[in-house]
């Protein structure tokens, strides 16, 4: 059986998570210098939204099951909101 992928190396995970949530969960990334914690809360909230949609453990963390789901080939239409 395909086993869960080895933990991504630290460098790639944030990029993968960020672009996935931007593409499919309307994560807004503004590049103003902000309190790091605020940005992380926003990302964690979006991550929970994605985990909720896919019936994964909702922990706001890019765990293995979440990363595995993010790497599956999929439709480019967002999972929330309109696509016009």
């Amino acid at each position, binding site marked *: *059986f395909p086993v869960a992928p080895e933990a991504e190396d630290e460098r790639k995970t944030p990029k993968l998570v960020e672009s996935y949530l931007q593409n499919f969960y309307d994560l807004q990334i503004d590049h103003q210098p902000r309190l790091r914690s605020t940005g992380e809360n926003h990302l964690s909230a979006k991550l929970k939204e994605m985990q909720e949609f896919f019936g994964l453990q909702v922990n706001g963390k890019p765990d293995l099951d979440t990363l595995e789901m993010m790497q599956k080939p999929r439709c480019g239409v967002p999972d929330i909101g309109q*696509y016009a």
Partner: protein
Amino acid sequence: LTPGNPKWKRNNLTYRILNYTPEMRRADVDEAIQKALRVWSNVTPLTFQKVEDGEADIMMSFVYGDHRDYSPFDGPGGMLAHAFQPGEGIGGDVHFDEDETWTKDGTGTNLFIVAAHELGHSLGLSHSNDPGALMYPTYSYTDPKEFLLPQDDIDGIQAIYGQSDAAVQPTGPVTPQPCDPSLTFDAITTLRGETIFFKGRYMLRKHPSRAETELNFISLFWPKLPSGIQAAYENVERDEVLFFKEDKYWVLRGYDIAPGYPKPIYRLGFPKTVKRVNAAYSDETTGKTYFFTADRYWRYDENKRSMDHGYPKKIVSHFGKIGRVDAAFQKDGYVYFFHGTTQFQFDPRAKRIVGQMKSISWFNC
């Protein structure tokens, strides 16, 4: 459904294929798209007419990377395609990522499956979180010959456009829920310490050290296996699992279907009067495998690789009143028989039923 409930004002829609992927014959692309449109026209009053030029409601094209719609593709893998909700101009249009390997089978990305999904968006559907639904966001290959539009998708599209004009309304497969008390199984087997429960085109995978049950399409792991497996058992010593459907069987060696299968079940010693096997389990302590058909059972010797004499016998004579067997497996010295939503625990040493449970007792509900 999509926020704002966008839908086409007319039921008779037009579509146009603007360009063709070089990886498939044009005729195969046309056929895949027509089949994908029929998925939706079969369950609604919608009709689709192909036009060769000018503006159509649904314009389909194969494009690379950034194709100037603010939603660039991302190379091979990742995003496969996207489509826009009903509306003027780009509304309803479908874009396929030309960086994918488009195919008519499962060797690459199956065009029919992706087109059927994207056309759901073109008609006003959004993504479903039902893992068995066509409108689930991630791609899963299903043999186009076996494809049936799931009930979740039928409900969605009929909520927008109403039912089809057919006298008998089509229905679709429903995704099994592990804790649904009415859940029954087609077949069950162990596999290298795990237990796999088969239902339609799905398999529920239970690992002893994981609390939750994993639901997958059978085709995700074994694209060559059909859906609707009727019996299965593991031969632990040979590290093989045998799957049965109608009068054929397949052998899984390790994690792959062995070449040269399916073979007819008659090679195992069944007479031609037997048309299917309902359930099977193998007792690794005795090397005997038990096959269940109708109200009888057969015993097969895995070492001699032949049926034992004096069989078939009546199930009730050896296993008691368990009725017709839908599925069976052996675990930790006990045999578990499934009949509808009832499960019997049989002790081969005491030769009697020692327990009775619900069919879903393994899923920590």
